């Protein structure tokens, strides 16, 4: 197998009338998905004059037809970039400026937005297109005006020329400098990655996913492509149902969702409202999560109420397609005990290098119960091709394997600090740039945060280091707590030099676009300048 389109083609042969992707308004069967994708592919090919391996942005809501649009782009011989329809114009401009897509596929409902982006881009770019009749930088293709009769005979030729290292999509993640970076992911990446995902979690034609993550987020790659490969069904959960939790439970049961792969904050909603007191989820068999650290306390709430389900903690960046290590929960964890991120996925290898570039051994320091720490590297077929149009950032993160001086081998440097526990499992420490030096000690703020997990009445929390004042801030949302009581909780769990110096209670924790706690904003707001 060399092309991800074989996923839908094979499933369309085996299950032509089975739903592939659906929402409350209906869905597309595998037969319909393949047919529509081919039509869109031929149409894009015609409109873009047969461009190859060029970016085509897709500006649509999260719905079944969007998947056909992505597949259509791949049929046309190009690769897709999912644009968040709600993203701020400045971010969209930044992405489109880097990307210079040959076309943007959209629908009538998003035409205004697409046109706005097109004209703004011209202004920002000054000289481009000034003297021509139209100021268009990219073509806008309105899916509602799809020419279903476009000549499909070209698709065979396109496919014949395609190879498995051709790109399928580029996915933009926020860079620390504020300029989004687009990780380019190939057919080979997805095929290798989805082989592992399918095997590790036993995904098959009986799997029914309840999809939570947006299509512009790398986690959606896992449930979407493992669905298409295995003839499963993906139900898109309306975003609003996470606001109205009983609707969420109803949806899960109506569509008999048996597998979920959500961000921890979505799982926490269920725990915060204690939803299992009001409704059960008898069909749900697999609860998978990734994207940020899953606090152990809400996970324990799930396990207590749904004890027979499989729980797994997945870890990885967009640059390794989605995931590089995982841990299936197989023992009990105290509320203040962090979950490990486990071991490398099948057909992916990870290793840990210390600051001198030497490999960290899993040997345990008896005093801490953990090994030394170091930076995590990943190698193998999951590792993306690089960042689109950004040679500098690509060179920084996709490097020659430091352990291999003999032949070219690019590995991905994750920027994450990790260590081994006594089981030989990897444990997440923090981002490399999130490690601080305080009172002469090297401290990981994540460890302080893990200790806070056991404090009652606190819903959400983050540790921030105020460099200017050399103070550790503990910021929390929840019931107002007495400072001495809080301090006591930390004294019982972390060494004195790791105790927070200041406690700040906020009414509402800020979150970024991906639903993660916005630490940059917290720091800007509460640290001294």
């Amino acid at each position, binding site marked *: 197998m060399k092309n991800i389109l074989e996923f839908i083609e094979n499933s369309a042969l085996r299950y032509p009338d089975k739903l592939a992707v659906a929402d409350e308004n209906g869905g597309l069967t595998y037969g319909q998905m393949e047919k529509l994708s081919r039509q869109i592919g031929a149409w894009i090919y015609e409109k873009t004059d047969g461009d190859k391996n060029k970016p085509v942005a897709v500006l649509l809501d999260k719905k079944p037809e969007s998947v056909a649009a992505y597949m259509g782009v791949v049929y046309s011989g190009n690769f897709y970039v999912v644009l968040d329809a709600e993203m701020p114009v400045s971010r969209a401009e930044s992405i489109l400026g880097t990307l210079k897509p040959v076309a943007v596929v959209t629908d009538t409902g998003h035409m205004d937005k697409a046109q706005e982006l097109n004209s703004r881009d011209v202004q920002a770019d000054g000289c481009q297109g000034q003297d021509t009749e139209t100021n268009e930088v990219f073509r806008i293709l309105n899916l509602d005006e799809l020419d279903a009769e476009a000549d499909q005979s070209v698709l065979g030729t396109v496919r014949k020329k395609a190879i498995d290292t051709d790109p399928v999509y580029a996915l933009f993640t926020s860079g620390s400098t504020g300029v989004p970076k687009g990780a380019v992911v190939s057919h080979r990446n997805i095929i290798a990655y989805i082989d592992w995902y399918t095997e590790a979690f036993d995904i098959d034609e009986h799997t029914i996913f309840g999809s939570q993550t947006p299509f512009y987020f790398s986690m959606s790659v896992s449930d979407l492509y493992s669905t298409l490969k295995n003839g499963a069904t993906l139900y898109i959960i309306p975003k609003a149902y996470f*606001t*109205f939790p009983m609707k969420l439970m109803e949806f899960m049961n109506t569509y008999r969702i048996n597998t979920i792969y959500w961000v921890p904050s979505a799982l926490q*909603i269920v725990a*915060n*409202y204690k939803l299992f007191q009001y409704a059960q989820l008898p069909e749900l068999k697999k609860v998978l999560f990734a994207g940020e650290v899953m606090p152990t306390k809400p996970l324990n709430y799930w396990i207590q109420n749904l004890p027979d389900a499989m729980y797994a903690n997945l870890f990885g960046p967009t640059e390794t397609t989605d995931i590089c290590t995982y841990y299936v929960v197989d023992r009990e964890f105290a509320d203040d005990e962090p979950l490990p991120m486990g071991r490398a996925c099948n057909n992916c290898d990870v290793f840990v290098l210390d600051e001198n570039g030497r490999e960290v051994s899993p040997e345990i320091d008896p005093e801490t119960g953990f090994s030394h720490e170091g930076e995590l590297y990943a190698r193998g077929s999951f590792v993306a091709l690089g960042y689109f149009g950004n040679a500098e950032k690509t060179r920084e993160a996709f490097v020659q394997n430091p352990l291999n001086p003999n032949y070219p081998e690019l590995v991905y440097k994750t920027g994450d600090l990790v260590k081994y526990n006594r089981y030989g499992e990897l444990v997440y420490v923090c981002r490399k740039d999130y490690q601080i030096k305080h009172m002469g000690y090297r401290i990981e703020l994540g460890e302080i945060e893990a200790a806070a997990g056991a404090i009652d009445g606190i*819903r959400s929390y983050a540790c921030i280091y105020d460099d200017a004042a050399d103070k550790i801030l503990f910021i929390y949302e929840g*019931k107002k707590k007495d400072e001495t009581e809080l301090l006591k909780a930390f004294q019982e769990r972390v060494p004195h030099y790791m105790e927070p110096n200041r406690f700040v209670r906020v*009414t509402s924790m800020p979150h970024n676009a991906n639903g993660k706690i916005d630490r940059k904003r917290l720091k800007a707001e509460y640290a001294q300048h």
Partner: protein
Amino acid sequence: MEELLKILNEVKPGVDYENETDLIGHGVLDSITMVTLVLQLSDEFDVDISPVDITPENFKTVQTIYDMIQRLEDE
């Protein structure tokens, strides 16, 4: 009512709550804001807002939230 407006402004500042006609449809209350708001209201008014009460109807405007709290206080 004043207390309710105070809480809303704390949970999510910068919204003209008194004149807002659709807190849900206009995207003021998202999932994470809702969790915070509900727990905050339960604490401050000492009422038990269960997930069953968290509906688009009850959280449409300040007035509907207020009515819901009154109802729950009487229970």
